[in-house]
């Protein structure tokens, strides 16, 4: 029940999936909100600290999730060959976009060699050996584009799952809600 089976995801994959849903949506909203805050807003600094901390925690969760996914079987996909191919492509893109989003965020804040504090608990150092010219600007622009691309992919992914659940009635969504015994 913790591990995936042929017909359903296990608890580990389900919890990891929904943790990231919450984390990614919250970070996205926070990111849009915090850049609109002005200098004298109480949360001007705190919002950014939280965004950075959360991003690095999500990177950690991402690593665990990818490791779990690669070391575990995945339940069979419903749908036509093309649908399966599309679903697989979107899944891969979701993983890659999330990784790129976290990396570009990290590159903004570490552009000057500063480390990032994760909830004031641990410090993630900058990788000064990979720094480049105008790093914070380029990484910032890319971070923005990737964030919106990820949201687009998320929408596609969610709509497809809902369509399969409601139109095809093939249990695509429930697979990711509760494990099913084989």
């Amino acid at each position, binding site marked *: 029940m913790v591990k995936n089976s042929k017909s359903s995801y296990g608890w580990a994959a389900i919890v990891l999936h929904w943790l990231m849903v919450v984390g990614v949506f919250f970070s996205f909203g926070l990111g849009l909100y915090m850049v609109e805050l*002005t*200098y*004298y807003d109480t949360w001007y600094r705190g919002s*950014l600290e939280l965004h950075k901390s959360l991003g690095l925690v999500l990177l950690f969760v991402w690593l665990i999730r990818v490791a779990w996914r690669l070391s575990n079987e995945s339940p069979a996909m419903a749908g036509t060959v093309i649908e399966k191919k599309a679903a697989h492509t979107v899944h891969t893109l979701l993983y890659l976009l999330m990784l790129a989003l976290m990396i570009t965020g990290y590159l*903004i*804040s*570490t*552009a*000057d060699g*500063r480390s990032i504090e994760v909830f004031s608990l641990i410090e993630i150092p900058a990788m000064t050996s990979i720094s480049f010219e*105008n*790093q*914070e*600007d380029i990484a*910032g622009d890319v971070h923005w584009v990737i964030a919106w691309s990820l949201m687009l992919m998320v929408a596609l992914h969610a709509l497809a799952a809902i369509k399969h659940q409601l139109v095809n009635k093939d249990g695509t969504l429930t697979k990711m809600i509760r494990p099913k015994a084989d």
Partner: protein
Amino acid sequence: MKKTFLTAVTASAIALSSLFSVSAQAADYQIDTKGAHAFVQFKIQHLGYSWLLGRFNTFEGDFSYDQAAPEKSEIEIVIETASIDSNHAERDKHLKGSDFLDVKKFPKAVFKSTGFEVKDDNNAVVTGTFMLHGVKKTISFPVQKIGEGKDPWGGYRAGFEGKTTLKLADYGITYNLGPASANVEIHLYVEGIRK
């Protein structure tokens, strides 16, 4: 006959070379940004409790200055706004963005002098147009000559400093940094190498 010709050639050669040396005497200087003997610094209050300092790393310029006729002095300096450096990447990113310098839209800040009012041997007031954030304004500020003379490597140098205070809102930069931070001081230190 031959001798006369030679004399003529020599004479004109001397005349010509002196003509060249006269033009070399023209007091045109290139600001030594290559050797980083020039600085565009800024200073602004933080919350009214302390100062924040930064600089523009990339700029170039020329000036002309002749001790014999200082009132004819001119200076032009072009600053790459994206080169702002306050020693903090996140802040620099914000300063380069649309809340402040908007460097994508306004990549250059330019000062071009229109007048030079001599006060004494080393002091003058320079007037000119300053374009920042797409806004052009006429400003005047005092400049001081620090010194001039031969350098140890065969060149000739002259150096000046100047300081002015700009109201950010005058240049359309209206982001609220608090009442103590409405103005920014610009400190200019330039050393020119005579061309």
